[in-house]
């Protein structure tokens, strides 16, 4: 069963449909491309912002005085307090700032105006003092999209993380910009830089830009942003895409499976019908039911049906040929016979008479052969038109055996038959003919002086009729073919001649007509040969 499935059409189609899995894979690839593109766009964006802030601060020497800011500025106090709060949350950031924080009110106002949402801007002067700090990377979590996270997307999360890997970035500190980047900006090199955070998923993008007063670099602007928005975008796109493509794949699988099952069922039905159409003897027994389908399987059905039809016609032709042949041969035989009879009636004497008699014998033999040839066809036609009637098989057998005893007084017949009736429905005349043939056959084989044993038995459902003789055993290879027309188990020249083995074909014809079977077996220890017919009763 399992092997049949593995070799079946359904399994192969399912294997072939694995190609469909390329669709989600392609979607994932597309999304990572999109993400890369978004990152580049963000980089350019943030670089542009940094440039804009830097150019706004340029050429304002007042903002970057060589000295520090006035201490005791209340606003500065306030800012320190905020930094303190910030530091309480993040000791590393507090340590990194320390007394290096020397903010300028004007610069911070600038930054507030020009800063982007969810970004943090720093302004650092050449002495590495932070002159301005605005914004925060810890943006408030954006309102989740209107549709609440469904179980499917949460269920898909492991799948998504399995197929999408975040870009590799070096680990970094989220509280302060990277020192090296600021240093490069202070010598005039603008740059963008990615660094990781403690949150494995989120990276920070920073752009640094020098601030000029005239040709001198007086400070640097650093704008930072997290990739959280991109991540979020990527996540939801991935989830949607994967859910969608998976749904498409499942639907395609289901359709393919249905289609393959239907195909396989039709082909299996055709297979079973084709197999049942021809029986073990090569006779055509069944038919192909035409579904009228217009596809290739429909064509196959029609072709098989047509082939069977042609084969049946040819078989019928072969079967009828014997009858036709005998019909055609009869007229010339009649010409010869009537001529011989006429010749004989003119009573030529002497040697001519002998030859005349021999010619007559030859014609007799010829016409016996001819009637044997057509016997099967004749019986077939008789069976076709005969009405089945209820009768007692035991009575038929007893009557026939009585008849044989008087017809062959020199031979002994043993009869074993139940005393009660063996009731069945059929054509009793055909049974008499069947028994005639079995007995004729037995008489031809049985050695002189031996008895022919006729036995009938019944178990209420099936009846067995056997005729055994003590003749020589039949070669095993011949046994299954004995009941075919034109096969004779006897040696050439033995018996009365003209035996084409049609008798046993008639036995089979009658048995099959009554739903039964025939067989021939050699009895053990060379005790002869048994021909047996088994038929269902009623």
């Amino acid at each position, binding site marked *: 069963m399992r092997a049949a499935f593995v070799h079946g059409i359904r399994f192969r189609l399912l294997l072939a449909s694995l190609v469909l899995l390329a669709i989600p894979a392609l979607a994932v690839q597309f999304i990572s491309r999109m993400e890369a593109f978004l990152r580049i766009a963000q980089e350019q964006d943030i670089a542009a912002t940094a440039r804009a802030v830097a150019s706004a601060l340029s050429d304002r020497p007042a903002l970057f005085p060589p000295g520090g800011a006035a201490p005791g500025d209340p606003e500065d106090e306030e800012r320190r307090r905020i930094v303190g709060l910030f530091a309480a949350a993040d000791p590393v950031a507090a340590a990194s700032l320390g007394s290096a924080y020397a903010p300028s009110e004007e610069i911070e106002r600038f930054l507030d105006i020009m800063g982007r949402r969810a970004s943090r801007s720093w302004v650092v002067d050449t002495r590495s003092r932070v002159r301005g700090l605005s914004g925060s990377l810890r943006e408030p979590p954006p309102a989740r999209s209107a549709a609440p996270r469904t179980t499917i997307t949460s269920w898909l999360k492991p799948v998504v993380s399995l197929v999408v890997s975040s870009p590799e970035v070096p680990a970094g500190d989220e509280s302060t910009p990277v020192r090296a980047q600021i240093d490069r900006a202070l010598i005039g090199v603008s740059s963008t830089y990615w660094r990781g955070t403690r949150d494995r998923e989120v990276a920070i993008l920073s752009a640094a830009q020098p601030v000029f007063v005239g040709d001198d670099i007086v400070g640097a602007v650093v704008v930072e942003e997290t990739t959280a928005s991109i991540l979020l975008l990527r996540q939801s796109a991935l989830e949607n895409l994967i859910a969608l493509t998976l749904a498409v794949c499942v639907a395609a699988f289901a359709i393919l499976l249905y289609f393959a099952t239907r195909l396989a069922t039709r082909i299996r039905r055709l297979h079973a019908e084709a197999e049942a159409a021809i029986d073990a003897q090569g006779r055509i027994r069944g038919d192909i039911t035409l579904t009228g389908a217009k596809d290739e399987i429909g064509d196959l059905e029609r072709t098989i049906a047509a082939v069977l039809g042609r084969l049946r016609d040819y078989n019928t032709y072969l079967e009828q040929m014997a009858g036709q042949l005998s019909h055609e041969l009869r007229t010339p035989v009649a010409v010869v*016979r*009537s001529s011989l*009879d006429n010749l004989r009636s003119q009573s030529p004497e002497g040697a001519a008479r002998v030859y005349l008699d021999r010619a007559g014998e030859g014609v007799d033999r010829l016409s016996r052969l001819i009637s044997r040839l057509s016997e099967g066809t004749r019986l077939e036609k008789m069976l076709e038109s005969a009405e089945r009637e209820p009768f007692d098989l035991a*009575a038929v057998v007893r*009557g026939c055996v009585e008849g044989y005893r008087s017809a062959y007084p020199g031979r002994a017949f043993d009869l074993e038959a139940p005393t009660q009736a063996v009731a069945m429905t059929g054509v009793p005349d055909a049974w008499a003919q069947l028994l005639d043939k079995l007995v004729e056959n037995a008489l031809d084989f049985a050695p002189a002086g031996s008895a022919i044993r006729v036995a009938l038995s019944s178990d209420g459902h099936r009846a067995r009729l056997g005729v055994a003789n003590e003749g020589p055993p039949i070669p095993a290879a011949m046994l299954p073919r004995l009941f075919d027309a034109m096969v004779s188990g006897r040696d050439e020249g033995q018996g009365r001649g003209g035996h084409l083995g049609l008798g046993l074909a008639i036995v089979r014809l009658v048995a099959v007509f009554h739903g039964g079977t025939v067989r021939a077996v050699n009895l053990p220890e060379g005790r002869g040969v048994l021909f047996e017919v088994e038929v269902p009763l009623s």
Partner: protein
Amino acid sequence: MPRRIALVEDDATIRQNYADALARAGYEVQAFADRPQAMRSLATRLPDLAIVDIGLGAEIDGGFALCRDLRAMSSTLPIIFLSARDSDFDIVSGLRLGADDYLTKDASLPHLLARIAALFRRVEAAKEPARDDERVVRGPLELDAARMSALWRGSPVDLTVTEFWMVRSLARHPGHVKDRDTLMRDAEMVVDDGTITSHVKRIRKKFLAVDPAFDAIETVYGMGYRWTEKA
């Protein structure tokens, strides 16, 4: 005056051979090759017996048609079918059309002559004056050989000559199995086993048409038939 036999046979050689043999046996023979020819001549004067082939030239069932026409002209004319066909269907069809006998072409000429003689004897017997054993009464069955009539429970059963003699042979000795040879002898006919079976089937059908409960003719398989009397 010799009896006249009409021979309708399309094969010239066989026709000539049979005609010679019949002439030698003392009959006057009129031989015809096809149906129109035979009808033209026979319509004016009926023969004493007709031997008809079933296939006549182009007409594959010409003999059946001819038999029907002849039977329409005379209900007593003995008709023998002589054909290469030997299927039960052809034999039964032929006998149903009212033929008295059916021979296949491999029958020898002496065989054919014997049957012709038997048929003529039967016709003669029908014409002979009444004898004591002419009337046979067995229960519901009444047979009158003088008029060739059969009555079953008072209703006439329409039997052909052959059938009548077969019933008479069976009914004269109820309970005795008549094998096929005895039946043939008693009915003064020479027929094949197959023809006897066909005759018996037809006789049964004719009685069943009159009385659906008819079962007086019993088949003893392998031996023959017997007349049974019940109630």
